[in-house]
């Protein structure tokens, strides 16, 4: 019996080594932009982005604080979009999932197919774009960042539906009905409170999607005032001077502010991922649970 035991030990050591190596590979790219953002500008231009900069400096962050107007504005846009989008999405999704979980609902199958079909076929971005811009006129509005594509997805609806049917016994609904509760009461007072774990997962997914979304902005926003953080990043990647143009000259007085473009670029990227990196350790559990929940059956 000694041999298999040793075998397990050896195997676990190898597994640890391989996974540790992959972990380093996963983190190194993210580390590079962090280090680059606190590297000295002249050093960066001389020796490029590196893990071991000869000189560190917080100039890029000082610069961004001085120019914080535009960045804060973009943050404001992204935060509003993420909060409003997530709340609206939750309301729509949990409500649409509820009738799908009721076995005595007459149009249950038809409605399920109606939702499901959106996963199979779509009209494509061209007709969506023409519709949203020509018919609904949402170009350059906050609506454009919130409404198209993400508000209700079949995936989330089925995730919540499955949670309702698997975790909330029918008897509970029946007894509420006997007590004279209407459908809306049952939905609000019973289903929503009991589905909190599923709701937490869906909100997490949705909030991340809104935070990271740049596609709606790319299609529908040309007004820089409405740029969220991701679209500001795209703009800066194409033209780092964009940060400078908006500078309020009067505010800065006569003092010339040089744009440390090479490091500021990376500092901006860091600003873009900071909230995610900060909340990640706390929400990780729900995230993994959600992935498994969604994968079991769509």
């Amino acid at each position: 019996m000694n041999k298999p035991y040793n075998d397990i030990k050896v195997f676990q050591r190898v597994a640890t080594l391989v996974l540790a190596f992959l972990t380093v590979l996963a983190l190194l790219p993210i580390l590079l932009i962090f280090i680059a953002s606190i590297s000295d500008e002249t050093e960066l231009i001389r020796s490029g982005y590196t893990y071991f900069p000869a000189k560190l400096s917080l100039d890029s962050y000082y610069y961004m604080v001085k120019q914080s107007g535009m960045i804060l504005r973009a943050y404001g846009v992204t935060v509003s979009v993420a909060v409003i989008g997530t709340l609206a999405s939750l309301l729509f999704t949990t409500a649409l999932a509820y009738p799908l979980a009721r076995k005595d609902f007459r149009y249950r199958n038809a409605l399920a197919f109606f939702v499901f079909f959106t996963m199979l076929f779509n009209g494509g971005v061209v007709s969506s774009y023409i519709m949203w811009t020509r018919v609904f006129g949402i170009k350059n509005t906050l609506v454009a960042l919130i409404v198209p594509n993400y508000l209700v997805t079949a995936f989330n609806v089925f995730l919540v539906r499955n949670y309702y049917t698997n975790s909330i016994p029918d008897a509970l609904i029946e007894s509420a009905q006997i007590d004279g509760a209407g459908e809306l009461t049952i939905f609000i007072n019973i289903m929503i409170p009991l589905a909190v774990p599923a709701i937490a997962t869906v909100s997490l997914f949705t909030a991340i999607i809104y935070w990271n979304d740049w596609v709606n902005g790319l299609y529908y926003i040309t007004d820089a005032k409405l740029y969220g953080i991701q679209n500001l990043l795209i703009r800066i990647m194409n033209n780092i001077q964009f940060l400078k143009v908006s500078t309020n000259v009067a505010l800065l007085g006569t003092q010339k502010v040089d744009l440390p473009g090479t490091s500021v670029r990376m500092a901006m990227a860091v600003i873009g991922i900071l909230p995610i990196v900060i909340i990640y350790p706390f929400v990780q559990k729900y995230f993994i649970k959600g992935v498994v929940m969604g994968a079991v059956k769509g």
Partner: protein
Amino acid sequence: MQTRKPRKKSNTLPLLLIASPGIFYLIVNSYLPMFGVFLAFKDFNYFKGIFGSEWNGFENFRFLFRTRDALVMTRNTLAYNAVFIVLGTAAAVLVAVLMFELGKKRRVRLFQSALLLPNLLSWVVIGFIGYAYLNADTGFINKTVYKALGLPAVSWYSTPGPWPFILVLVHLWKVTGLSSVIYMASISGIDKGIFEAAQLDGATKLQQIVRITIPMLKPTIIILTLMAIGRIFYSDFGLFYQVPQNSGRLFDVTQTIDTYVYRGLMERNDVGMSAAAALYQSLVGFLLVLSANALVRKLNPENALF
């Protein structure tokens, strides 16, 4: 005395009302654009509008498939997805098996967190990360790696050759952690007794993996692969648009159907061609999902989507 069953109040209307905001949204967001596919058969003109523009039959499709673009984008979309499916599955299964063998050790949590992190970054940020490595003047590869190796600097964003490798690497970096979670859940479902019995019979860990874990994972692998094949006509717009920084010199190896549709619509203002490409993608994609599902149904009806 008559006993009458108390008639249950119909719940149809209240339930429909509760669902109505979601139904309305899906009609607008998903169903209306389905009817918009007729744009592919029009010579769209912004001034004449959706209904005012003239019909031109299959002209857009004829033009589209006469260009080299149609071939390039179809080839790229299919080839990248094929490589992603093969390498992505292999990497995810490997990671899942290794993590599972470590059991509930503290470090598993750490590994999993780290491997999942790239998935939470936006493609824009990943584009920035790529820039930190690949930029010709200040990139890590040119300035550090190639310098150390004594190789001449490469202008990465205008050299197509290495891009297939770069894109595959970036894709694996981003998604492996996530897909391994699914395989791990599937491995946890395997009856522990089988492993114990094998161990009693003197099977080594490696033998257990090859003879038990992998075969037990086969249904999951097959189902996920078939579902991926159903989506093989769709590409990740962010990967192919942000990571190559929209560089025109790279289109030959980075253009997919999704980037082509975007560029046609937003950059070349060619709504008709773009709509034709989008419809081509939707239709072939639809047929592929249906066939993939039919196959899954045959193999294992429980896992079929419908």
